[in-house]
């Protein structure tokens, strides 16, 4: 048990894969290397999928159009037609988080288990949220929106800029970490067959739900910023 505890603890830390030997050595974390792998996979997938597109879709193009259409309509449902320009970014984030959460099934450490990755995603989200507010209402209207519904609660509205990314980041990180720890404990008790059932829930179902929740919450916050006058 003691050995298992220290083993688990060592897996919780974010590891350094290799060091680039310039400027006194730049450490590259494992999560970055895995992210490069996902990027490569997605680029190749995109290249293969968009080869010889036709006006009348057949075969793989049908699936591609269904997936892209789903992301577009998901964004447009919440933000309205004008929000469609944010769909490419949100779709990219959804695909990245989805793939990295589900990767645990293959035995690869998910990059989202590294707090730095989820923090980066959350910071990009809050920048997008505030940007969408400025874009819609102008800098003045955006500043004025902090005094809504009354000037008294302006400090709370300002605090929200920091709380929202923190909660986005911690939610994703905590869920992935929690699923990882529970899976390790189950593997300790029953090394064969039984983990498969739980893996279906923790790695696939929970991972996809968290992806959906991350994008959904970003969208809702954007809508709130863009909405009230």
């Amino acid at each position, binding site marked *: 048990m003691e050995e298992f505890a220290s083993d688990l*603890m060592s897996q*919780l830390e974010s590891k350094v894969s290799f060091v680039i030997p310039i400027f006194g050595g730049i450490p590259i974390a494992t999560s970055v290397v895995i992210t490069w792998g996902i990027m490569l996979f997605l680029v190749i997938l995109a290249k293969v999928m968009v080869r010889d597109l036709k006006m009348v879709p057949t075969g793989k193009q049908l699936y591609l159009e269904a997936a892209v259409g789903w992301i577009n309509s998901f964004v447009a449902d919440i933000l309205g037609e004008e929000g469609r320009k944010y769909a490419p970014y949100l779709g990219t984030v959804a695909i990245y988080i989805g793939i990295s959460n589900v990767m645990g099934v293959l035995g690869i450490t998910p990059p989202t288990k590294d707090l730095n990755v989820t923090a980066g995603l959350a910071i990009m989200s809050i920048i997008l949220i505030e940007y969408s507010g400025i874009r819609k209402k102008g800098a003045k209207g955006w500043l004025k929106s902090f005094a809504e519904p009354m000037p008294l609660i302006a400090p709370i509205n300002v605090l929200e800029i920091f709380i929202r990314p923190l*909660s986005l980041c*911690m*939610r994703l*990180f*905590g*869920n992935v*970490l*929690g699923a990882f*720890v529970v899976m390790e404990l189950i593997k300790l008790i029953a090394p064969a067959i039984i983990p498969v059932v739980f893996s279906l829930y923790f790695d696939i179902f929970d991972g996809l*739900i968290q992806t*959906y*929740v991350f994008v*959904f*919450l970003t969208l*809702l916050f954007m809508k709130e910023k863009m909405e009230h006058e």
Partner: protein
Amino acid sequence: MEALIAVGAGIAVLTGAGAGIGIGIATSKAAEAIARQPEAKGDINKALLLGCALAEATAIYGFVIAVLIILFLK
């Protein structure tokens, strides 16, 4: 000292009880709402998922704090 750290981590994880009750209430109401108005299923599901995500966050914070207690006080 070791035992006290374990007790502290255990107390931090008690936040899960609140999240469980919250999600339970939300789900029961959602089931009721869908039974009454099956045509509004999509909207109800969306609201339910949002509520669950926010309620669940408290449990996640408790868990993260528990892990941090164990990691940093060891």
